[in-house]
């Protein structure tokens, strides 16, 4: 399996604070993704990257930004966290068309 790790795995923060989630992969995959998972909504795409410094928005990108300065790292930033951003966040990288490798998830609680 792809080596893909997320940090932190759990975080509790307060409304209005910035939060950064990190995703690190060791497979030299070009494409990387950030999803959020909420009950009743499944996985929803936030942002994705198709190369260093190349990113694009997904279906729920408002309130989030991303950066990819190196192939192996993809950062997700919540500029000013809100309670609606309480969720489990998953990072993934693409091995080949259709086959995503997911991290273990980061559970974020915004109070």
């Amino acid at each position, binding site marked *: 399996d792809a080596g893909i790790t997320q940090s932190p795995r759990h975080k509790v923060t307060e409304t209005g604070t910035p939060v950064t989630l990190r995703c690190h992969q060791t497979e030299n995959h070009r494409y990387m993704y950030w999803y959020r998972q909420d009950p*009743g*909504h499944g*996985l929803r795409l936030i942002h*994705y990257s198709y190369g260093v410094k190349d990113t694009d928005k997904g*279906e729920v990108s408002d309130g989030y930004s991303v950066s990819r300065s190196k192939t192996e790292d993809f950062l997700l930033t919540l500029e000013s966290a809100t309670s609606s951003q309480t969720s489990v966040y998953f990072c993934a990288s693409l091995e080949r*068309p*259709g086959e*995503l490798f*997911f991290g273990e*998830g980061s559970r974020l609680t915004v109070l």
Partner: protein
Amino acid sequence: GESVGLHLPTLSVQEGDNSIINCAYSNSASDYFIWYKQESGKGPQFIIDIRSNMDKRQGQRVTVLLNKTVKHLSLQIAATQPGDSAVYFCAENWGDMRFGAGTRLTVKP
């Protein structure tokens, strides 16, 4: 916009029986359709995929069927085992990857 959806949110089967999980899609331009399995507390895991120019693909104990006429995708699991208990997602690949809401499969001993 177009979306991927599932017919049933939950499915309960007896150990040893076959399971069928269904999915409807609406984006006829998608080139890949994929099934993922997510166990509690873990990230989704790739199971099997099928290209849009195929009708059927088999893996180990799993078969995916694609009916483009009615835009329907199904995952069949043969001889379902307790370890198959999980949430199953279908996804379609069209530029990016979009997932359905998931079906929870419970296997009764």
